[in-house]
């Protein structure tokens, strides 16, 4: 038998959302995208034993029990229009789709239960395969996954690595092996390069003044993992109480958004002044491949939480942490993602 190398791994996951946490995506609802990290979304079986139970005459375990299942994973990718749209839709949770081929537009916002939205995020299935079929090495599907968070980093430099996205996800614990999914053809992805950035924060256009060095923005759902196990949440094998419990819901907790950036600091730079005055404004960052493929993220009200002058490669720079705040009209954040692909999170 030949050795299996990690380059062989293929992943596909729900482009469309699942009907509910327990109903897996079908193959036609999935897409195959490539990734940069070798990490696998290994299902983890949690066990307990009877070591602490009295009546055995000793302190040693005599039995172990399958109690529950966890699944989590990370996708690291060059930022493209497709994964950008997917991460915004599944990560924020609320989507309005407009447009027609080849220009679909996904307007995404977080869910707000106070206004009647669900507290559960949209679910998707995640498949990993290495030589599925007769020579199977890995072929499994995690059902009922949600996006725990995404992080976008933009840097200076010519390569693709200067525009990346990392998506973390967690699952209900339900897995299917073999997956039963025929891997769809790889999706052609449109890179959203760092050089396409448009950036305006708190009244300053950091691209036109040529001062932006790097930025990072992220969203974290802080999913209530333990809250997924409730009386009746179910088992890995339905009806088999010894097969380990799985989650019956995945709700977000206290969500957090971040935006930080490094810019050149020169005469007239306003970051320290705005820190002292706690001035607020919008922060809009946009990355574009072409007219039909782009991503624009708007933090609707930010102030500067910290601003420290330092250096980057011998140039005086200022490192700013923004505080995203609630705006009465537009909420905290929205994303407008355009791409050629229909049906994302629908």
């Amino acid at each position, binding site marked *: 038998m030949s050795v299996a190398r990690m380059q062989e791994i293929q992943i596909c996951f729900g482009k469309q959302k699942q009907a509910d946490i327990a109903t897996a995506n079908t193959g036609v609802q999935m897409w195959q995208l490539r990734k940069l990290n070798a990490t696998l979304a290994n299902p983890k079986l949690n066990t307990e034993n009877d070591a602490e139970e009295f009546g055995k005459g000793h302190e040693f375990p005599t039995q172990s029990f399958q109690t529950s299942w966890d699944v989590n994973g990370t996708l690291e990718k060059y930022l493209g229009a497709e994964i950008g749209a997917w991460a915004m839709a599944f990560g924020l949770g*609320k989507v309005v789709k*407009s447009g027609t081929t080849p220009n679909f537009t996904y*307007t995404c916002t977080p869910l707000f239960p106070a*206004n009647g939205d669900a507290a559960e995020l949209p679910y998707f299935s995640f498949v990993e395969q290495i030589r599925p079929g007769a020579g199977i090495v890995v072929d499994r599907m995690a059902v009922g996954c949600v996006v725990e968070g995404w992080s976008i980093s933009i840097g200076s430099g010519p390569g693709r690595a200067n525009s990346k996205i990392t998506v973390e996800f967690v699952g209900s614990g339900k897995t299917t092996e073999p997956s039963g999914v025929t891997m769809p053809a790889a999706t052609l992805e449109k890179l959203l390069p760092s050089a396409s950035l448009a950036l305006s924060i708190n009244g300053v256009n950091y691209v036109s003044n040529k001062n932006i060095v790097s930025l990072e923005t992220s969203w974290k759902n802080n999913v209530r993992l333990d809250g997924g196990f409730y009386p009746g949440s179910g088992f890995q094998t339905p009806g088999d109480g010894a097969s380990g419990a799985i989650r019956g819901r995945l709700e977000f907790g206290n969500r957090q958004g971040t935006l930080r950036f490094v810019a050149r600091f020169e005469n007239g730079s306003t970051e320290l002044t705005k820190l002292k005055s706690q001035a607020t404004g919008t922060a809009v960052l946009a990355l574009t491949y072409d007219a039909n493929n782009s991503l624009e993220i708007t933090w609707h009200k930010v102030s500067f939480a910290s601003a420290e002058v330092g250096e980057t490669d011998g140039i005086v720079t200022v490192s700013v942490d923004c505080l995203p705040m609630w705006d009465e009209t537009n909420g905290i954040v929205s994303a407008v993602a355009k791409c050629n692909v229909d049906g994302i999170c629908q």
Partner: protein
Amino acid sequence: MTETVLMRSPEGEVQEVEATPAKIVPLMVRGWRQVTDEEVTPDVRRADAGNPDLLR
């Protein structure tokens, strides 16, 4: 022609809304969600829509 989407409020009101972030995002934040044509009966979308002959 400006593209529109159908949005439904938490109270059930349906509106045809210009598909721009400036119009959509404030509604989404207030609990409105997108609905499809199939989810909306013709006379909800437009007072004079539908075929009254079908009712006879």
